[in-house]
């Protein structure tokens, strides 16, 4: 790698503990393990792949990282069929055609006209190109749910993550002035290619422990009654053991706690669970499984 790729030192955050504190101030409860992964990713300037079930804060990491570094968050949401024109760049064809019409009568040569048409003015920069065109400070690039994109896109991504440059045929090669901090997330609906995984640091996010989840509830919903919070967390953790098709994540715990508080409850009873069921369970089959296990039984376990 040439020297222009050398990353400037992330001297804002000195060590792992500092990162934990910084994140805590921004409302994200980070355990030492994930803080280590994030810290390494920042210092080594290697992309970080975060894998885990839905609702566990994978996307949050990127948002909080951007805030803590006081830099821009550029987000690319992946989906099946994602291609270059949506992810990297596209020419603004309509504007170009209009410009051609307007230039019809002007004195410029054909080369000059062509150069004008294919200039930055007519280029629509999508997230991946945006991430390497930042002028002042390295942004955070979040590639969300990369398992939803296909292998062709992964191959392109691999190239980008190696060289941090993109070639637009009409403009030439654009090299990153500041190497972005890259975070990829995956729900593991599909195996990612080995090459991509090797290029990244890795972190598997697991469901939190009771203490950790309580910390999150306290941090994100400070108005929640302590007793109610504990019951909700215990209840959700019991529900997770039921092997639902879509087990509730931390996001669901927060929804449930917030809903219960909004309903004015001070403790969790069967009625409240039934009323807030939609927060926890996202399909009819899962609802049936939960009812079969017995809401009262589960509640008894959480008291």
């Amino acid at each position, binding site marked *: 790698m040439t020297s222009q790729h050398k990353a400037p030192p992330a001297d804002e955050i000195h060590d792992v503990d500092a990162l934990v504190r910084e994140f805590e101030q921004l409302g994200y409860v980070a355990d030492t*393990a994930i803080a*280590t992964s994030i810290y*390494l990713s920042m210092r*080594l300037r290697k992309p970080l*792949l975060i*894998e885990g079930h839905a609702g566990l804060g994978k996307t949050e990491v990127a948002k909080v990282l951007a805030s803590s570094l006081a830099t821009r968050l550029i987000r690319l949401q992946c989906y099946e069929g994602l291609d270059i024109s949506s992810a990297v760049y596209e020419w603004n064809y309509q504007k170009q055609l209009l410009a051609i019409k307007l230039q019809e009568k002007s004195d410029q040569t054909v080369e000059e006209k062509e150069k004008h048409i294919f200039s930055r003015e007519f280029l629509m920069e999508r997230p991946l190109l945006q991430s390497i065109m930042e002028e002042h400070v390295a942004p955070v690039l979040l590639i969300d749910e990369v398992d939803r994109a296909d292998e062709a896109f992964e191959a392109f991504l691999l190239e980008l993550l190696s060289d941090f440059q993109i070639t637009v045929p009409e403009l030439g090669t654009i090299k990153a002035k500041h190497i972005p901090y890259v975070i990829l997330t995956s729900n593991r*609906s599909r195996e990612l*290619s080995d090459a991509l995984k090797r290029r990244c640091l890795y972190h*598997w996010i697991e469901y939190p422990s009771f203490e950790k989840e309580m910390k999150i509830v306290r941090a994100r919903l400070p108005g929640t009654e302590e007793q109610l919070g504990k019951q909700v967390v215990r209840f959700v953790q019991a529900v997770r053991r039921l092997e639902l098709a879509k087990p509730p994540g931390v996001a669901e715990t927060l929804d449930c706690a917030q809903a219960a508080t909004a309903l004015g409850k001070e403790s969790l009873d069967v009625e409240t669970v039934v009323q807030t069921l939609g927060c926890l369970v996202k399909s009819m089959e899962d609802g049936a499984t939960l009812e079969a296990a017995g809401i009262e039984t589960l509640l008894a376990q959480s008291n």
Partner: protein
Amino acid sequence: MTTTVEKPDHAAASIVEFCRFARSRGLSVGMHQTLTALESVNVIGVADRRLLSFALRSVLCSSQEEWEQFDQLFDKFWSSDRSQLDSEKDRLPRAAVLRKQSTDSRLLVSAESSDASQDNEGKLVSGASSQQRLKRVDFSEASQADLAALEDLSLRLLRQMSLRLARRMKIEAQAEHIDLRRSIRRNISRGGDLSHLAHKGRKRQEKRLVIFLDISGSMNLYSLFLLRFAYALQKHFKRVDTFLFSTSVVEVSDLLRAHKLSEALNALSQRAVEWSGGTRIGESLREFNRRDGRRILTRNTFFMILSDGWDTGAPQMLVAELRHTRSRVQKLVWLNPLLGLKDYRPITRGMSAALPHVDVFAPAHNLESLLALERYL
């Protein structure tokens, strides 16, 4: 928490050794990762053992399985006497390590055949003729040695089929192009100048596949291979839904989607599923149509039934339900392993009644017949 007592110059050597140790225990650790591990130790330092383990775990693992194994490996390496580390019983045999590192679908190796496969490692250099023989071996008649060899061969051939299907999709799919014809029409009122452009949509693989697999006693031997086939096809269809039936129906799509095949099959045995017993095809199909039909069956769905047609229920129900299903899907395919038998004629009440209501009736008793399905996909 004990801190590592390593002198700085020894630290690097230990890290490299640990990486090698991790690789011998099945983690996919290459040169690149070893270098990154050394870089990360420069950043994190060796003073705090917990931080070191977190850092190395982040560098050396690349999946949930590896992640969950890691702490044990780390503790083992850093606390025990190094000379004990090479005990043969813990080391994974090299063949297994290589197999683990393949990117594609990992296939289940049954407990009996894993020993056979290690013996057969040498014999697996199959010439064209032995490959042909293997492709034709009926699953129910395969010996243990054959089963192991079949597993490897099917892995390879399914991968090739995957590539062919993927290439086909690439040729069919078009990037967003300007639709010249529509653009010109749109601009007729403007004197033919193309100021409003119409674009061609992208043609995507919209097909969905539903697999309806008979797992009653008579189908058992074929079921495992057919499940593997279903698993391998997942990449090529927008969506694959898998249902198992014998006297009733169970949906297992989420299991096959979310897990590697070996885990999926394990989880399957834990779900209350009857792997033997009678067969009621018509009733099962009826249950499916009622409960899941609306959600699952669409215009561009391929519906594949894998069953030998031995139905203990009434043929009228089977016919009625088949007609119902067929009217809602693109193609109804019935795969019957008995078609592999030379003298088989579909004369059982169930099968003969069903035949006119099926678009494709094909065998599925060996690898060759499964691969032949490619042209219908």
